[in-house]
């Protein structure tokens, strides 16, 4: 149990450290870091590695944005097996739709209630 927390912290933290280094040393913009992470997650999933990372680190691997790339590819692959080429388009947002929909919904609700402070 304690070790689960430990590895989630270490793996999740390490992903964030990589992001911070990309910002500070390689001068990537925040948008570049975000899209690089999504692509990296998808590539790792392509080699079947991201599932192993989730098994090992739990939330340490599912919370960072890299897991969004992993979910994109996962959904696309599952549907591709069933429906062929068209399945990629059908499945790509299948696993991620809950995340996208809640981002839109909560963004909308927050925008109604609050005013930016600047």
């Amino acid at each position, binding site marked *: 149990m304690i070790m689960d927390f430990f590895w989630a912290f270490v793996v999740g933290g390490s992903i964030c450290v990589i992001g911070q280094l990309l*910002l*500070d040393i390689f*001068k990537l*913009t*925040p948008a570049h870091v975000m899209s690089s992470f999504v692509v990296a997650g998808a590539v790792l999933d392509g080699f079947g590695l991201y599932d192993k990372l989730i098994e090992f680190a739990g939330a340490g691997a599912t919370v960072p944005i890299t897991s969004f790339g992993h979910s994109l590819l996962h959904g696309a692959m599952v549907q591709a097996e069933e429906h062929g080429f068209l399945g990629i388009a059908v499945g790509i947002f299948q696993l991620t739709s809950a995340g996208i929909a809640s981002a839109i919904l909560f963004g909308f609700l927050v925008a109604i209630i609050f005013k*930016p*402070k*600047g």
Partner: protein
Amino acid sequence: MKQGKQSWLFNNGVYIKGTATVSGPKERAGPLGQTFDYSYDDLYCEGKTWEQAEQNLLDQSIKICIEKSKIREDAIDLIISGDLLNQTVSSNYTARNYGNPFLGVFGACSTSMQTLAIGSSLVDSGNCDYVMASTSSHYSSAERQFRYPTEYGGQKPNTSTSTVTGAGSALISQERSSIQVEGATIGKVIDFGADDPLDLGSAMAPAAADTIVQHFTDFNSSPEDYDLILTGDLSSVGTPIVKKLAYQAGYDIENVHRDCGLMVYHSNQNTFAGGSGCAVSAVVTYGQIVQKLRSGELNKVLVVATGALLSPTIVQQKETIPCIAHGVVLKRVSES
């Protein structure tokens, strides 16, 4: 009259009749807070958007300047103003509130001295009797324009600066006052290949040094002739660079140099490398510096406003950042 290679000497006597400074809440809480004519308590400055807020700042500074100069609004022959937003909308939209001829200019953060230099030249030549030289900037409208909307919450490195929320105006004429606009040095566009839009202090320092050195050459003067050499927004990053570059050119400005960006905020106000924006040199010069010239605490000041001439689009296309700096000399004279 042309002076040297890049400078103008205003022979007919151009004087500052009045100035006005307006700021946001954070600047009010800074070391110069008491020197501003008016400060808003809220970053929205009674507007609905950041852009409206900036227009309100500019409008307020022009209004107060007219009031302090004790002239009629329709006596102003020209309002000359610029800002940081696309198509200089803050200036253009504010100018629609006035029935005076208007010239919009863009010089990024060098706008304060650009407008003062052009305006002084027009007054000196007799083309205008009264000119209002103004500029404005706003923290959140500039963040949206050049970096990220503040709502996005992007990280900023320590080399980045904080745009000053404020506006400054000066009314100039040939009517004698205690502050004379003696001359100006117009800068060249200088690009040393800096490409980090989050470190503009380093990018602008060579342009500032070039204008300062050119000014000394053109007027055959030296740092000892000035009580103060004020740069606009080189911040804590660019300040050591400008001193070093001037020193290498044979001028030691160490003891007379100060940077407006390092004067407007306290070090604990979380402003990273210091203040920046069109308003920073305007609110410092038209506030504290003008007050000190009037009281006799200062006699001769060279203000060098520095501007980074980038746009977000062109930076994304991996272009470098060209910069410019314009200098104006303000001198204390007897009123009669």
